[in-house]
C-alpha cells in the first residue's frame, strides 16, 4: 500500500527568513507587467511605458525606505548588492587614497558580505578586521571605535548588517554611523532581514549604502537594490549598458521591479501591526517549545523591540540533537524550518554566527531557526508545539549513537516506526 508522501502533508512554513511568500498584489502587479513588451532603455512608446513603470516603482521603493529615487540602484538581489557595496566601495575609496585598505565588519555578517571581504583580502590586498559580537550577537561598538581610531585614514569602509539573519539580533547601526561619520568613513548595511520587520529609514540612519531584496518582503526572487547615497562613488561590478547610474549594467527587469515595489510598499505600510502580530506568535512559539523541551535554549536578544530583535525570529538550541536530524524529522511532519547554517553542496556547516556568539560547535550544530511571516497563523505554532517534543526525543536518540557497536542489538526495533 502506498503511503502519503510527506510533500503532500499539511504544510507549516516557518522559514520566512529564507524566503517569504509573495503578496498576491505583488504577483498580480508583476504578472500584468509580464504581458507588456518594452525594454525600459528603448526610446519608443513601449520602451517609455516600461521606463515609466520602473521609475514609478523606484519612487515607491524610495518612499518606503526613506531615500531619494535616484539613490535606488536595482540589482539581482541581496548577494549582488552586498558585493557591489563592499567591492565597489573598497575600490573607489582605495583609488582615491591608496592607504585605505582596511575593511571593518563583524564576525556575524552574512556570507554575501564576508565572502567578498575575504576575496578582497586574498586578491586585492585588503586588510580585514572582523569585530566580535557579544553573546546576543550584537556588535561591540567600543571595539569598532578602537579599530577605527587606531588609524582612521586607512579604513576603506565599514559594513554591518542591520539585523542578523540567523538569530534576529538588531545591530547598533546608528552608533556605528556616529563613529564612522566623524572620520568620513562610509558605512554599508545589509538590511535584507530588517526591512518589513523593524522601521528602516535610509536617510535617518545615516548609512551610505544599504542592501535590500524583494523575496524577503513578499516580492519576487532575483531582484533587489542597493540604496546608494547620491554623492557616493562606487566602482561597478558589472559593465555594459550602464543602465543603473553607470554603477550597474544589465537590462532592467521591469516586471520583477514592479512586483518588488508593490511588496515593499505593502510591507512597510503594514509593518507595525505585522510586527506586533508575529512577535506575539513568536513568543508563543518559544514558550510552547520550551514547555515541551525544557532544556532548549533561546538564542539572540530576548527583547522584541526594533532596537533589539526581529519580531519574527525564534532561534533555539536543542542539546543533544543534530540540527539536521531535527529539520528532517520536522520536514517529514510537514513543518519547514532551517538550521540557519550556510550550505556548500548541501553540507551543513556549524553556524559562524553562533560560534561568534561564543557557542560551541556542538551547540551550533544543535540549533534550529524558526522564522515567522505574513502568512503565519496560530495553527502553525500549534502544529510545531505538538511535533517538537517527540521530534527532539527521536533526534536525541540519533544524536548520541555513533556506531552499531555502541547500541545493543535489537535496539532498532525499540524505536520502530510511529503512526
Amino acid at each position, binding site marked *: 500500500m502506498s503511503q502519503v508522501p510527506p510533500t503532500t502533508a499539511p504544510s507549516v512554513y516557518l522559514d520566512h527568513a529564507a524566503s517569504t511568500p509573495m503578496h498576491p498584489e505583488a504577483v498580480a502587479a508583476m504578472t500584468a507587467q509580464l504581458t507588456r513588451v518594452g525594454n525600459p532603455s528603448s526610446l519608443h512608446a513601449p520602451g517609455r511605458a516600461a521606463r515609466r513603470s520602473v521609475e514609478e516603482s523606484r519612487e515607491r521603493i524610495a518612499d518606503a525606505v526613506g531615500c531619494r529615487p535616484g539613490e535606488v540602484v536595482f540589482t539581482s538581489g541581496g548577494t549582488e548588492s552586498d558585493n557591489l557595496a563592499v567591492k565597489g566601495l573598497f575600490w573607489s575609496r582605495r583609488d582615491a587614497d591608496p592607504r585605505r585598505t582596511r575593511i571593518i565588519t563583524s564576525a556575524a555578517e552574512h556570507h554575501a558580505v564576508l565572502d567578498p571581504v575575504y576575496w578582497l583580502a586574498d586578491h586585492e590586498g585588503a586588510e580585514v578586521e572582523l569585530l566580535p559580537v557579544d553573546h546576543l550577537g550584537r556588535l561591540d561598538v567600543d571595539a569598532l571605535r578602537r579599530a577605527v581610531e587606531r588609524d582612521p585614514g586607512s579604513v576603506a569602509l565599514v559594513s554591518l548588517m542591520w539585523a542578523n539573519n540567523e538569530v534576529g539580533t538588531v545591530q547598533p547601526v546608528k552608533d556605528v554611523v556616529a563613529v564612522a561619520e566623524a572620520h568620513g568613513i562610509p558605512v554599508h548595511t545589509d538590511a535584507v532581514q530588517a526591512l518589513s520587520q523593524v522601521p528602516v529609514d535610509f536617510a535617518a540612519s545615516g548609512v551610505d549604502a544599504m542592501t535590500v531584496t524583494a523575496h524577503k518582503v513578499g516580492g519576487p526572487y532575483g531582484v533587489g537594490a542597493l540604496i546608494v547615497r547620491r554623492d557616493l562613488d562606487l566602482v561597478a561590478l558589472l559593465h555594459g549598458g550602464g543602465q543603473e547610474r553607470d554603477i550597474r549594467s544589465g537590462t532592467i527587469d521591469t516586471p520583477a521591479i514592479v512586483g518588488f515595489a508593490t511588496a515593499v510598499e505593502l510591507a512597510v505600510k503594514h509593518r507595525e501591526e505585522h510586527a506586533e502580530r508575529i512577535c506575539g506568535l513568536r513568543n508563543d512559539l518559544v514558550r510552547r517549545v520550551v514547555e515541551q523541551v525544557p532544556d532548549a535554549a533561546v538564542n539572540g536578544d530576548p527583547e522584541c523591540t526594533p532596537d533589539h530583535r526581529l519580531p519574527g525570529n525564534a532561534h533555539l538550541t536543542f542539546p543533544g540533537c543534530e540540527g539536521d536530524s531535527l529539520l528532517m524529522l520536522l520536514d517529514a511532519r510537514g513543518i519547514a524550518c532551517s538550521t540557519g547554517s550556510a550550505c556548500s*553542496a548541501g553540507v551543513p556547516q556549524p553556524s559562524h554566527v553562533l560560534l561568534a556568539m561564543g557557542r560551541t560547535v556542538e551547540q551550533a550544530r544543535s540549533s534550529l531557526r524558526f522564522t515567522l511571516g505574513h502568512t503565519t497563523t496560530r495553527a502553525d505554532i500549534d502544529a510545531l508545539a505538538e511535533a517538537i517534543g517527540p521530534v527532539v526525543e527521536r533526534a536525541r536518540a540519533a544524536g548520541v549513537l555513533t556506531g*552499531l557497536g555502541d547500541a545493543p542489538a535489537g535496539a532498532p526495533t525499540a524505536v520502530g516506526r510511529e503512526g
Partner: protein
Amino acid sequence: MRVLAAMSGGVDSAVAAARAAEAGHDVTGIHLALSRNPKSYRTGARGCCTIEDSNDARRAADVIGIPFYVWDMSDRFHEDVVEDFMAEYAAGRTPNPCLRCNEKIKFAAVLDRALALGFDAVVTGHYAQLRTGPDGLFELHRAEDMGKDQSYVLGVLSQEQLAHSMFPLGDSRKEQVRVEAQHRGLSVAHKPDSHDICFISDGDTGGWLREKLGTGSGEIVDSGTGEVLGVHEGSFGFTIGQRKGLRIGRPAPDGRPRYVLDIEPVSGTVTVGPREELTVDHLTGIRPRWCGTVPDRPLEGTVQLRAHGDEHRAAVTVGDGGAQVEVRLRDPAQGIAPGQAAVVYDGSRVVGSATIAATRRTAATSGA
C-alpha cells in the same frame, strides 16, 4: 516500511531507491557527504564525492518523488576510512577502503542514525542478494550478475546489519538497471560506473600516499640471494604481486621476470623474486566478522581475496577463541597482501570475512 536510500549520485543507488519506492516503501533519499572539501574531489567524477554527484543524487530523488537530504559524514569517513587507509599502508598492508566504509559508515553510522530517526532499513544499490535461511536468519548471497557481484565488499555485515538492509538490485543485471533508469527518466542512466577509490580523485593511489605519508627511499632486494638490486623512492608505489615498474637495472640471472614479494614498511625494503614465490596456500585472518552464526567446525567452502577476484576452494577454521581464522587454500593464490579481506562463502552465501594478517606457503605448490 520507512526506508532510507543511500544515494551516491550513480545509476545503481538511484534505481535501488526507485524500486524501493515502487514496492510501496516510504523512502527518503540521502547523499553522504564524505569529503571535507568537496571541491578538491571535483575532478575525475569517480563516483560519490563530488558536488556533481550530490546534484545527480538530488535530481534522481526529484524524479523518483522522494524527500532528499545530504548527511555530513565527512568527519567519520575521514577518521574511520581515510586515516585507517593511510595507517594500513604505513604499516605495509593493503587495505580495502570500500569494505571499511560499509563496516563503519554505511551500515554503521548511517544505519544507526537511520534506525534512531525511525527508519526501518537502509537501501543501497549494491549487487548482492538477501534471503531468509532455514534457521530464520538473514543470509547474504552473491548477486545474479556475477560480473557485478558486490557481496565481497558487504562481507563485513553482521546479522543485525543485514536485518536492516535492502539490496533491490541483487537479482538484476547491470544492463537492465541502466535500461530501467532510462525508462524511469533518471538522468544518471548512462553515467559511467565509479571505480577506484572515491577519495583519490585522479586514481593515483601511489602518488596520493606519497603526498600524505611522504616518500622514503629503500632498497630493492632479491629474495633468493639477498642482493641489493636497486633503490626506490618510496614503498607506497608498490603492491605485492607487482611486476611492472620495478626499474631494476639488470635482469634476474635466469632471465625470468621478478615480482614484488614483500614490503617492509619500516626500512622500506621491497623484496622481489620469481613468480612461484608469490604463491600462498595458507592465510591467517584477524578481526573476523560473521554474517550469521560463527562456524563451530572447519568449513569447506570458498574464499574470495579481492573485489572481483577469483574464488578459491578452501578449508576455514576459527581459532584463538574466535579472534582468528585459519584458511587453507585448496586452490593456491598469488600476490596476496596483508590487509586485504578474505571473504568466506558457502556456495553463493557469504559466511563472513576476516582481514588477512599473514600468508604462508606450506606445500610445494606450483606457480600456476
